[in-house]
């Protein structure tokens, strides 16, 4: 145990000895006031299954997206290179024309 642990444990042990003697019962009228406030508020609705699974569905969709990119990556790169070649050809044609 290092010096800090010793000091902290000593302080905490001392602090724990101080009992909280404050009254823990609800003040007069508190329950009635809160109940009255609550009566004017909507109690909300239970979480529907769609909401429950929304985050999970989002994660699954993201995983599918990543998988789709990974599977088609080679095709995508090849396609880009071909496009570049075609584009270079067009420029060449233009130069030939001039």
């Amino acid at each position, binding site marked *: 145990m290092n010096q800090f642990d010793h000091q902290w444990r000593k302080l905490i042990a001392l602090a724990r000895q101080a009992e909280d003697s404050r009254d823990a019962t609800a003040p007069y009228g508190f329950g009635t006031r809160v*109940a009255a406030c609550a009566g004017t508020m909507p*109690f909300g609705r239970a979480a529907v299954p769609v909401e429950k699974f929304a985050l999970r569905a989002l994660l699954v969709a993201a995983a599918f997206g990543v998988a789709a990119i990974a599977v088609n990556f080679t095709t995508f790169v090849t396609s880009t290179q071909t496009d570049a070649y075609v584009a270079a050809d067009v420029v060449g044609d233009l130069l030939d024309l001039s």
Partner: protein
Amino acid sequence: MADDSFDFAGCLERVRQRDQSASRQLVEHLYPLVIRIVRSHLPRRVAEEDLAQDIFLKMFTRLAQYQGNVPFPHWVSRIAVTTCIDQLRAQKRRPEFRWADLSENEAEVLDNVLTDERDTTPGDALAARELVHKLLDQLKPDDRLVIQLLDLEQKTIAEISARTGWNQTLVKVRAFRARRKLQKLFQDLQNKEKS
């Protein structure tokens, strides 16, 4: 106290039917549980009764989400804990911790803890408690909560996890991070004392 003799199921059924008397009974029954949590994690300058009221109103507005998977007092205590953390986060700035902010008794207790020169007396307990709360005020709300529950209230990691909804690894990480910060605070205080 939130004991087993209270008929939560029956009371909640009546509350859902907008029975105001049942709502009042529920609030009064759970008040000791909620106020203990509020007092343990009370942010500065926030009245405990106002915070308790916020917690109960949240409880009512979310009542439809209660599925009965955990005992109702546990569910309410989780709302209480998260509400207190939200309040602590909203305060953002924590005042710098200085010797000058301590009362005479607190400074004496801290000096005694740091120097280890004499045994503490039971009379030091209240000052120590105040001092611990001032030190905990320097931590991030989540870290503060973990240390409060772990060290002051002597809850287990599993109990903290159940109360907060954080997994056990996260609780351990937060406890470790909080102790590191406290250690730094202690070192700073010792350095200031020497200088």
